[in-house]
């Protein structure tokens, strides 16, 4: 028997949590859990982890689109069954990892993967461009300022050779979030692609009283741009509603999150901002936020050429100029942001100058600077 609509609470099971992880470990992992000694990336996408027991775990990492079908997952399962005793894992960046316990098993596995067209690109290790973590975009969310999967596909096609090789100065972690909610570590990524709105919310006076608690909508605005106001709906009746002080709006979208009758999205208003130089690891330098270097690029489906070019330009300027082992932000800090803008040729605009809460700490309070082309 199964679920009975007549009696939904019958033998209900809740709060059992996820399955225990250990049952999914490959033998070599279970056996050497906590015993690993060192690792070696033997070629792009292939890692060997050595255990004190002498065992070796060979991992082949494969890029994935994240938005994937059950048929594709089943295909991954077939591969795991054929080569990995039916085990596999997903990384924190949506890549897939197939593990074998013997170097000899690596090539057959790789040949199999390669034999399946462009479904399973091998790479993403070491000094490579990472898979681009991303969010929902137009595939599922209600607040996006751009698409996610489409932009990422276009960008990764262009950066492909950097994903499958390890010729960058260091890791470059890519991320996309389709709105300021930033569902991901976009705010701390080497190169971040961020969907941004640029028009204040519209107010649907017909729907607002039904859909929203006005006080919540008003309270939702961090800048107090939403004010109570009387308005007339399409029936010509006067209704309690809100008004938005446009000059105070910074397009964060929080009002829409709280009140469905205040949509912001707009084909021309929405687009993409590029942020760079963030990192999370503590290696050498502290974790830092990504900095906005391009405030806006238009939404140009299906391949967002402006965004693709911008990302590639930054990546390749970095590759050509940075020291090895230096993340993008470490490079920009070392040479100074004026040099970053000069080398990348990205125009510096007022939009890049902070004017939010902690802005003062980002202003230049020294006469030490470099004479770049910016100084006429």
């Amino acid at each position, binding site marked *: 028997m*199964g679920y009975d609509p007549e009696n939904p609470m019958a033998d209900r099971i809740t*709060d*059992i*949590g*996820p*399955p225990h*992880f250990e049952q*999914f470990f*490959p033998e070599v*992992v279970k056996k050497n859990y906590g015993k690993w*000694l*060192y690792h*070696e*990336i033997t070629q792009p996408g292939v890692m060997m982890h050595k255990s004190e027991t002498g065992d070796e775990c060979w991992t082949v990492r494969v890029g994935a*689109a*994240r*938005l994937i*079908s*059950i048929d*594709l*997952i*089943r295909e991954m*399962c077939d591969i795991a069954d054929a080569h990995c005793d039916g*085990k*596999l*894992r*997903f990384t924190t960046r*949506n890549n*897939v990892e197939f593990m074998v316990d013997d170097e000899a098993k690596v090539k057959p596995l790789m040949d199999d993967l390669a034999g399946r067209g462009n479904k399973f690109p091998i790479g993403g*290790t070491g*000094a490579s461009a990472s898979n681009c*973590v991303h969010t929902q975009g*137009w*595939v*599922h969310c*209600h*607040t996006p300022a751009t698409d996610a999967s*489409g932009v990422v596909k*276009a960008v990764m096609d262009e950066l492909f050779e950097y*994903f499958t090789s390890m010729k960058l100065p260091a890791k470059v972690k890519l991320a996309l979030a389709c709105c*300021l909610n930033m*569902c*991901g*570590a976009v705010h*701390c990524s080497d190169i971040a692609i961020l969907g941004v709105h640029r028009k204040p919310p519209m107010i649907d006076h017909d729907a607002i009283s039904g*859909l929203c608690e006005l006080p919540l909508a008003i309270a939702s605005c961090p800048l107090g741009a939403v004010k109570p106001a009387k308005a007339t709906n399409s029936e010509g009746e006067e209704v309690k509603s809100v008004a938005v002080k446009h000059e105070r709006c910074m397009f964060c979208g929080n009002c*829409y999150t709280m009140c*469905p009758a205040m949509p912001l*999205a707009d*084909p021309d208003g929405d687009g993409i901002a590029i942020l760079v130089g963030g990192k*999370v*690891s*503590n*290696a050498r*330098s502290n974790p*830092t*936020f990504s900095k906005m270097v391009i405030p806006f690029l238009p939404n140009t*489906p299906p391949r967002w050429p402006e965004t693709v070019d911008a990302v590639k330009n930054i990546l390749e300027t970095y590759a050509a100029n940075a020291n090895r*082992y230096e993340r993008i932000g470490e490079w920009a800090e070392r040479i100074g942001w004026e040099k970053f803008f000069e080398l990348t040729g990205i125009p510096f605009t007022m939009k890049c100058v902070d004017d939010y809460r*902690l802005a003062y700490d980002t202003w230049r309070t020294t006469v030490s600077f470099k004479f770049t082309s910016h100084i006429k």
Partner: protein
Amino acid sequence: MPKHDTPLLDELESGPWPSFVTDIKRQAESKPECWDILGQLELSFKDRITHWKHGGIVGVFGYGGGIVGRYSDVPKEFPGVAHFHTVRLNQPSSKFYSSEKLRDICNLWEKYGSGMTNMHGSTGDLVLLGTTTDNLEPLFYDLTHDLKQDLGGSGSNLRTPACCLGKARCEWSCYDTQAACHHLTMHYQDEIHRPAFPYKFKFKFSGCPNDCVASAARSDFSVIGNWKGDIRVDAEAVKGYVNGDFTANGGAHGADVKLDVQADVCDLCPTHCMKLSGDKLFIDNSNCNHCMHCINMMPRALRPGAEQGATISVGAKAPILDGAQIATMVWPFVNVTPDNDFEDLIDKIENIWDWWMEVGKNRERVGETIMRVGLPTFLKVMEVEPIPQHVKEPRSNPYVFWQSEEVEGGFERDVKEFRKRHAQ
């Protein structure tokens, strides 16, 4: 459901990176509603705007999270996605799977959903993308009874915890990230499934300061492995690196990139606490700040110290509303072990929750609450002794809030007495 023309999306079938469009088309052969996914997405590509309505509240009986409601704003054109709710399955720690388990999930989703997924969501859940309200209860029944697993979090509750793969396949993990993640997930099932907080709350577990699950950027309660005492050095392997026997950075730059130990390790050590003389490496560990760089560079020669634990930082979040926060270091070195059921973590978590649930405003992340009341107040409430490690630098403004009891004579004074000695 009929096939739609998707000239724009078709452009995304070319190129070397895996194409989600090709993938969805293939899936559509057996799950025709996928044609409507493509159809509506094509319309969004054409209109350059989303066609999803503002999320509605749907879920399974008794749970306040795990499902994100979603409806099309063009349901007539695309009835297959009129309802398109997300189901968040709580992933196993660090996302190892057996093909058997994955196949069960695929079958479940073939039966009740669109056939499309996210492997995985940004928080860590295995995300099943697109089903109807009617399917939720049957799906949940099969999930719990047949697959013996559960939903993850959404809404103002504890979100699905996540961790790096740690000891499973990494030599640097300073505590058992998977065990900690799993234990706390089980321990807090109620908090995950039934919203009781001012806003969302997230745990993330990384085994070392490389922070491979980006916990410092994305979790209200960030647990990052760390060590005390001396970095473990294999002097022989150091020689190997000096002699160019091994690749630099564990091969991260290719097989032929060797290490210049002086330039690449010592000179890049942020605290300059390393010295190379000949083929001997000396580390002044008292000045090491555990950044991991040298260990990353020479994995065969160096390992984190033997006395291991974790550093706990609090309050990371995305920008909404007061600006993003990277987690602030609160507990420098905590013992994290299954032997006491991770009670050192649990105590701290519950102290934070008790306080935050009391003083946190609606939709205020704990990091924002700390910003509002100030770090000193938070440390006091947590009964944490202030130490210099809590700050990058001491305050530069002179605006100290003294308490009456700290000041000789207290705050109450008699102005008349004062006037006797000081004419107006």
